[in-house]
């Protein structure tokens, strides 16, 4: 389980996160939603240690990640997988080399074992046979799937996903969401997804945190969101006519 306790983050005069406290449970799709500039990605980066919180703590299974030294953090980071908004695949490496990269650095597996693991991960994201392609030869959806394959190559306990649907068509977005949800359930991973895609929210949102002006404004499930009377949340979720109509039918 991941817990964030009273997280604050400021950049100069700009207070981006204000006293956020939340917990993310294993085997659940934990979604962080909110409008642009609400602090979603900053919160995610504070959780994974790419930003240091100005105040507050991040706990991984009770261990305070914020206070840890670089060498101690490495142990936690080996258990973290992350899919970035733009996939962040290494341009100079093939798909296979991208997936094998953490295995080369942090495991004592033989070359055959690493290849088997890479093939398994590629099969899991439906990209069998794409081993030798470079990232520049992949479509946006394929890059996301390779990013997921790389993220799960070390069998992570924690999976972080930043805007998995950005730049993807609706069908591919749903496939990516389903893949994330399947992996979360299959391996009982603590998954944290930052998104503002309403299909994701309604489709896989086991646990949703809504950020507004850098504060946790609402917390609940995808079933609860439809019946919430929170004004800001409703303005965000049901902004489109389609969503408003869908809500009225519920």
């Amino acid at each position: 389980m991941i817990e964030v306790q009273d997280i604050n983050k400021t950049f100069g005069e700009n207070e981006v996160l204000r006293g956020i406290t939340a917990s993310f449970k294993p085997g659940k799709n934990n979604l962080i939603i909110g409008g642009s500039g609400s602090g979603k990605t900053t919160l995610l980066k504070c959780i994974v240690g790419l930003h240091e919180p100005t105040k507050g703590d991040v706990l991984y299974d009770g261990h305070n990640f914020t206070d840890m030294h670089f060498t101690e953090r490495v142990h936690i980071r080996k258990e973290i997988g992350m899919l970035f908004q733009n996939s962040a695949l290494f341009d100079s490496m093939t798909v296979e080399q991208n997936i094998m990269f953490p295995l080369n650095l942090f495991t004592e597996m033989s070359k055959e074992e690493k290849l088997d693991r890479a093939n398994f991960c590629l099969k899991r994201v439906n990209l069998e046979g794409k081993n030798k392609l470079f990232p520049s030869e992949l479509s946006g959806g394929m890059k996301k799937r390779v990013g997921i394959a790389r993220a799960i190559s070390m069998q992570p306990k924690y999976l972080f996903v930043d805007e998995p649907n950005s730049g993807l068509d609706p069908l591919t977005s749903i496939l990516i969401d389903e893949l994330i949800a399947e992996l979360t359930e299959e391996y009982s991973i603590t998954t944290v997804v930052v998104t503002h895609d309403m299909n994701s929210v309604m489709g896989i949102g086991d646990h949703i945190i809504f950020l507004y002006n850098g504060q946790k404004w609402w917390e609940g499930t995808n079933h609860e969101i439809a019946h919430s009377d929170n004004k800001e949340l409703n303005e965000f979720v049901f902004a489109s006519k389609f969503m408003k109509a869908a809500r009225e039918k519920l």
Partner: protein
Amino acid sequence: MWLSFRKPEKFKVYWAEVMREMVSQGIGSLGIIAIISVFIGAVATIQTAFQLVSDLVPRSVVGGITRDSTILEFSPTISALVLAGRIGSSIASQIGTMRVTEQIDALEIMGVNTPGYIVSPKIIAGVSMVPLLVITSVLLGLGGGYLACAASNTVSTADYLSGLTDGFNTIIVTVCAVKAVAFGFIITSICAYQGFYTSGGALEVGQAATRGVVYSCIMILFADLIISKVLL
């Protein structure tokens, strides 16, 4: 900076990266260094000969002056300035692009010591390959001088070769070697730093590369002055 030289997670992976950088920096720069060195050596010889047209000065002096100026200044300094453009801009833009496309963040999330994995192989390759390129430059520069002598009648090749060996002081080789190592470090570390701390997008990556090259050139000239003053 010290994080760049922490113990690697796995030596084999880092070693492969060092080798890749050595090939990229060394072999990749050989062509431009060869062309520049031959021309500089030839021009230095012709201009020195032009300035020393006197019956009181032996012709072999041209060889000696070309040798000293090539080893002490032309090869290390001009090669380094060229390499700052060739290698430095490549390093800064490569690392800068990795930064803005979140590839460095991805490495950090995996638990990789990113300065160590990204920066140290480039610095190691720089301090080992720039001296080799400078040695190549010296040899080709002196060869260029020989070709200039052979092509013109101002100085005979025999006089030129005699001048190359007359009054040879080994300190100039030491100075050249120290400069080459220092310049290799300056180019790679400054440009890597500029790339590593890039933020924004394509525009900022270009600006980081430009800053890296400009700062490297200034620091090369400054280090050139200091090393010459201290060692000569």
